[in-house]
């Protein structure tokens, strides 16, 4: 017999709904389409998954701290463009080029933090501005034509194939485990949750909320930049439209994974599940031959259903707590 406390604890987990929907769809799709649950299909799904999940992971942590970043799609383009310009045009070593590419992403994240926190501008507006500026920077520094990815560039360590997986999935798992550890086991993780839930109370407790939020902004941008570099290495090309619209997809993944737009709620695991859920929805729509004109409707409807279920399970968990209290 499962105790009420265990049920409450399970339902309270932010990623519970996404996980439940994921398992439901996994079973449904497995029985409805014999091409869904096979290694070849999952190889296809997992090829882009690490890139999307890294961005969603960064967004989730930032949302837990109570902020928001719409510029991740543009940062996703800036980092690989900077990296590739340094490698191709300036013949800099690829490791140094990648680090500078990530530094560019970190700088954008830091500017987002300063504008948002110091000038007390909502992050929605500040990062919306950065979305345009960073995209423009990507076009300007490349002159509209980013250099080609050199054919002899060593990419195996980042996107090489290991059986049905790409190495990038192991990078994702490693980074997600670190993020999960930081969020759940360290003081800094507690500060992120506290800052997101009630910044005033967090400040009263002596938490430097600027440093906490700035770190989350920078981390979010670095992860977006790193994801962009992974994608450009994988598809062996860099174009200035890389990552366009990705911000909405990443935010949808974070929200479906249980992160709250109000701050203080979310988990690294939820970001991974949310992204996986959206990826398999996309996949099954293709496999099911859904008419092209209905495609966006189906994706949108499933996002809404996932979020409604999130709310329902959270309310159910709250009610269980109230009964226990009685």
């Amino acid at each position, binding site marked *: 017999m499962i105790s009420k406390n265990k049920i409450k604890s399970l339902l309270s987990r932010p990623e519970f709904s996404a996980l439940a929907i994921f398992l439901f769809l996994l079973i449904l799709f497995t029985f409805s*389409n014999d*091409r*869904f649950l*096979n290694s*070849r*299909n999952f*190889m*296809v*799904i997992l*090829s*882009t998954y690490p*890139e999307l999940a890294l961005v969603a992971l960064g967004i989730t942590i930032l949302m837990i701290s109570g902020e928001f970043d719409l510029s991740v799609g543009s940062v996703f*383009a800036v980092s690989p463009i900077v990296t590739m310009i340094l490698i191709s045009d300036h013949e800099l070593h690829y490791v140094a080029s990648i680090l500078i590419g990530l530094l560019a992403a970190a700088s954008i994240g830091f500017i987002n933090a300063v504008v948002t926190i110091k000038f007390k501008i909502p992050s929605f507006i500040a990062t919306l501005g950065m979305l*345009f500026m960073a*995209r*423009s920077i*990507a*076009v300007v520094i490349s*002159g*509209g*034509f980013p250099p*080609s990815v050199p054919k002899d560039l060593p990419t195996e360590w980042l996107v090489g*194939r290991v059986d049905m997986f790409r190495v990038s999935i192991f990078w994702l798992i490693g980074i997600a485990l670190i993020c999960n550890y930081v969020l759940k086991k360290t003081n800094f993780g507690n500060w992120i949750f506290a800052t997101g839930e009630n910044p005033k109370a967090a400040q009263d407790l002596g938490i430097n909320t600027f440093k906490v939020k700035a770190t989350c902004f920078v981390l979010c941008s670095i992860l977006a930049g790193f994801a962009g570099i992974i*994608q450009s290495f*994988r*598809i*062996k*090309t860099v*174009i*200035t*439209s*890389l*990552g*366009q*619209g990705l911000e909405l997809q990443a935010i949808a993944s974070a929200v479906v994974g249980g992160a709250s737009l109000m701050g203080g709620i979310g988990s690294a695991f939820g970001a991974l599940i949310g992204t996986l859920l959206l990826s398999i929805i*996309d*996949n099954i729509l*293709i*496999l099911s*031959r*859904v*008419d*092209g*004109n209905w*495609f*966006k409707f189906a994706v949108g409807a499933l996002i809404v259903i996932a979020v409604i279920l999130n709310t329902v399970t959270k309310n159910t968990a709250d009610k269980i707590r109230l009964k226990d209290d009685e």
Partner: protein
Amino acid sequence: MKLLKISAILISMMLLSLPANAKYKFSVLTQVDTSNTFWQGIKRGMDDACETLDVDCQLVFNQENGNLQMQLTNLEALVEQGIDGISLVIVEDNMFDEAVQKAIDAGIPVITTNVDDSEGAAGNARLAFVGQDLFQAGYELGKELSKQFPDGDTHVLLGLSAPGQSWAEARIGGVRKFMEEYKAANPNKKVTWDTIDSGLDTSVTGQRICAYVQGHPETTAYFDAGFWGAGAGNCLRDLGYKKNEFLMGMFDLVDIVMDEMDEGYVHLTIDQQPYLQGYLPILQMYLMKEFGLSAWDVNTGKAFVYPSDVSVVRKYIEMGVR
């Protein structure tokens, strides 16, 4: 205060970077934003024409990709401003009719570029169109690639990159028209096709094509309304597809298309010569203003590019002119 000073310096720098007074001022309006690689080729053509003819030109990108109302507002502002000539893209048949008519009535020549009103001169007061006949180009793409279809049944996947947008609908509509004719001409073969929303992102499109193909291994070929389908090369290799085992046909010349042609995963692309779409409207408007000549239609795009052509066109791509 510091912020204000920095802003003032930046604005001054931007104003100082504007060209000196030229005899004519022309504007080119598009519905896309600056990150569109293809439009950088049009911009290069426009810039070169403007430098050669010593006229002042501006390519007005949209802040928001595909926001037609924003493009219309920009057009109306330019007409009010009394610019010397306008070149623009028309991806919606009715929205720009009034503003273009107003420009023509005010003596401002208007030439459509890249995408025209689907009814051509009958649907809009513009004076000429410089670009590709999109439907015809789609038809020709289908016809040309079908020469490589293997024997036996044919199942084709059509990638409608942007459902509802006229350029994508027209190109894929052209391919579909050809497939209908192909089916009728081959009564002994089973000929079928499916259409998906393939998206406007190389990575997303690639993943969708591969998901479809692994689920429907009977698929013979893929047609893309743009160039994004080239993103499938990577995952097709992951799925174990050998060179030339799965046919892909698409549009435009960008690095990834050329790379995949080299690899044997893209077999045909159609170049619509964006450089000409930027260059020729400026030249025409200049000739109209300077010598009173009339505008003329130019079909810039039915140029087939095969894998064997890659080494030749690559140098022009690097120059940004193809």
